[in-house]
């Protein structure tokens, strides 16, 4: 049997439990909505404007840097697993690999993109 089937079971059970709990709340809780209740919460005062707000470009940069390092990790995990059996050259390869990416990180940092301005 494929071991991932068990993981799928975990997923199913992991979904059932919260759904059950929320359903319980739905069944036992009162349901008396009114316009004021359904307003969005803004510290008790009337909501102002749309929920949309101007976002900082930095959000994109963080996700971007994360994406890059994420993909990097994808390459490095097999490397880390096999490292014990490989020689020092593999370590050097890894060091080169990471250093190249760190250059990008430094670039983004020098550009002031990693700061929350």
């Amino acid at each position, binding site marked *: 049997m*494929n*071991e*991932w089937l068990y*993981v*799928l079971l975990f997923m199913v059970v992991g979904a059932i439990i919260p759904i059950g709990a929320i359903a319980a709340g739905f069944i036992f809780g009162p349901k008396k909505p009114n316009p004021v209740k359904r307003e969005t919460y803004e510290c008790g005062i009337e909501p102002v404007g*749309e*929920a*949309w707000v101007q*976002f900082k*470009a930095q*959000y*994109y*940069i963080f*996700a*971007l*840097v*994360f*994406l*890059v390092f*994420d*993909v*990097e*990790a*994808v*390459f490095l*995990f*097999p*490397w*880390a*697993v*096999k*490292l014990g*059996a*490989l020689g020092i*050259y*593999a370590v050097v*390869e*890894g060091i*080169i*690999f*990471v250093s*190249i*990416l760190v*250059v*990008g*990180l430094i*670039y*983004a940092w020098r*550009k002031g*993109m990693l700061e929350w301005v």
Partner: protein
Amino acid sequence: MTTEQIIFLIVAGATLASGLLVVTSRNLIHAALWLVATLFGVAIVYTLLNAGFMAVVQVVVYIGAIAILFIFAVMLTRKDMRDSGAQLNSNWWAGALMAVLTFGGLFAMLRTWGGMSKTAAEIPAGFDQIAELGAQLTSPEAYVLPFEVASVLLLAAMVGAVYLAFNKK
């Protein structure tokens, strides 16, 4: 029909359905979330192919990072939350025709190709895919150059994206 086949059909159907929703959803955030569903389906397909590592990587990279990037980009390029107007361009029929033709062409090719009846060999016991992947990625006899070049590619992407999107000039 075996259990595996049933699972595959269900997963593939759901994946393609959410794929269709990706390209037809009006709301871009919804499209991005449907993309997540599609990619998750693809991850399950990987597990059916015994490529557990690929499945996890799929979730980590696509759902964990690329989907987030998409959502951030949508938030950065949208003035109002609700989408209005058509989401398909005026040439959508041509695009649809091309897509159908592509599928038809690929399908026709698959039908005539001789390798389809191939059966998958059992994965040998004790064969560690990840370790083998690591060995091949670092071996000068195999893929060490793509491995390092991938790093350069990512660097270029990072520098390029940072420069493009947020050049102060």
